[in-house]
């Protein structure tokens, strides 16, 4: 899988607690595969202020009900948004989430 641009991912939850853990796992998975990648975490509340810094966003399942609001912001910057795969989230599976991100970007 090839991407010629840097991937700048943000993972969102309600306060940034679980998302920072998942972000670390995804970062590790990316490094293992030799990608240059920025993975940040944050709360949905702060997303608006920093959305422009990213080119892809993931939403954790507990903030699923905020997807519409987040998508609206993301659309303004043409950032694709998806929910993190529930099982990958539960297992903090960085590899699987990375696959999901690559798929989102290559579409």
């Amino acid at each position, binding site marked *: 899988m090839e991407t010629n641009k840097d991937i700048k991912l943000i993972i969102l*939850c*309600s*306060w940034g*607690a*679980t998302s920072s*853990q998942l972000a670390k796992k995804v970062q590790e998975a990316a490094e293992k595969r030799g990608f240059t990648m920025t993975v940040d975490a944050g709360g949905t*509340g702060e997303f*608006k*202020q920093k959305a422009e810094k990213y080119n892809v966003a993931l939403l*954790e*399942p*507990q*903030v*699923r*009900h*905020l997807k*519409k*609001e987040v998508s609206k912001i993301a659309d303004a910057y043409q950032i694709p948004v998806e929910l993190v795969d*529930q*099982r990958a*989230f*539960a*297992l*903090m599976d960085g590899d699987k989430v990375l696959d999901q991100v690559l798929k989102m970007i290559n579409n």
Partner: protein
Amino acid sequence: MIEWLENHLMEPLGKIAQNRYLQAIRDAFVIFALPVIITGAIFLIIANPPTSLDWGIINAWEDAVTPIQAQLLFPFNLTFGLMALTVAFGVGYSLAIRYDMDAVMAGILSMLAFFMTAFPVTDITQVPFGEILNYLGGQGLFIAIILGILTTEAMRFLINKGVTFEMPAGVPPYVMRTFRALIPFMIILPLVWAIAWIVWANFEVTLPQLVLDLFSPLVSASNSYWAALGMILLMLILWSIGIHGMNVVSSVAYPFWMTQLAENADAVKAGTEATGIVTEPFFHMFTHIGGSGATLGLVIFMLFSASVQLKQVGKTAIIPSLFNINEPVIFGLPIVLNPILIIPFVLGPAVIVTINYILFATGILPPVVIQPPFTVPIFFGGFIATGGSWLAGLVQIMNGVIATIIYYPFFKKYEKQLVQQEQEEAAETSVN
């Protein structure tokens, strides 16, 4: 079924969670007020040794702080005493961010407007500061929130209507910022002053007192067992369908919880009886052992489970669970939309809330005076929240055990299902 829930429950409830005012209120407390009151509470604890314990070290501590108690309480008085001022700024700031406005200016405007209403509109040099400090703290929270929203909305209205100085292009942004805020400030602040004056001239009360009188029945109602039970049930039912329950409930309940907390701190300071029971730590520290739904024991079961899936999720979930973060458990086990596990998930905390309420109401547990961050692990959280009670830490452990016992039969039933399913799958793959 799931689709029906999505359409009929998730959407409307999600709307509540998305309400910009509620989000701004929650952010004002969690982001802006929390560091202020935690810092203040530390001084309150230092100035009030637990004199019920007759230990040498406590006696020495008491001897050391008694002569300087007033000075030690100064940082407490100012931080707790300015809690509502902080919240006024926080509400204005957070709301302005959601509108893409100049957040700092909105925060300052809302803070000034609130400050202005806290004084009697009279010769200000005759008003002792100590007398109004209460209104700037716990007792002023409701008016602080109301003004935070109203001033920011008014500012937005004026800017949208073009009632601002617009500088020609090329003017440095920070100069532009001053001028853009100037007219809203000059219109809104005098307006607030006029209202505060009318209220003072006619009723001889300040606006915070007036609002407090209006809200006080609600505040005392929120401190009851039924309110506590209602809150916990709502939180967990929301979680059960996949919505962040604490998030939704706390955005409405925070002003009430904080008012109780501030009243408790004041009572401790004055040496009188603290009566606030239903505060944020009542849920986050004493009920949500290991995260919403008190799942710590459940995660420990999972670690030793015969089911591959449960064991896997348990391994990832245990460390965050120790810090009361359990989203991976709620979604990975999953508890969400799981007819078996939802029962203990709701029942356990309901039982714990009942026990906690009795323990606090009868004075067996000392009142909560500090709100620790929700990530403080079991035992330490209770110890800190009550200003140093070992018993409170032990009660947390007891609550964790109670929840675990309630989970056990349901967990076993669910585990059996999964193991069977996993065996069938394994059999299928070996046949193929």
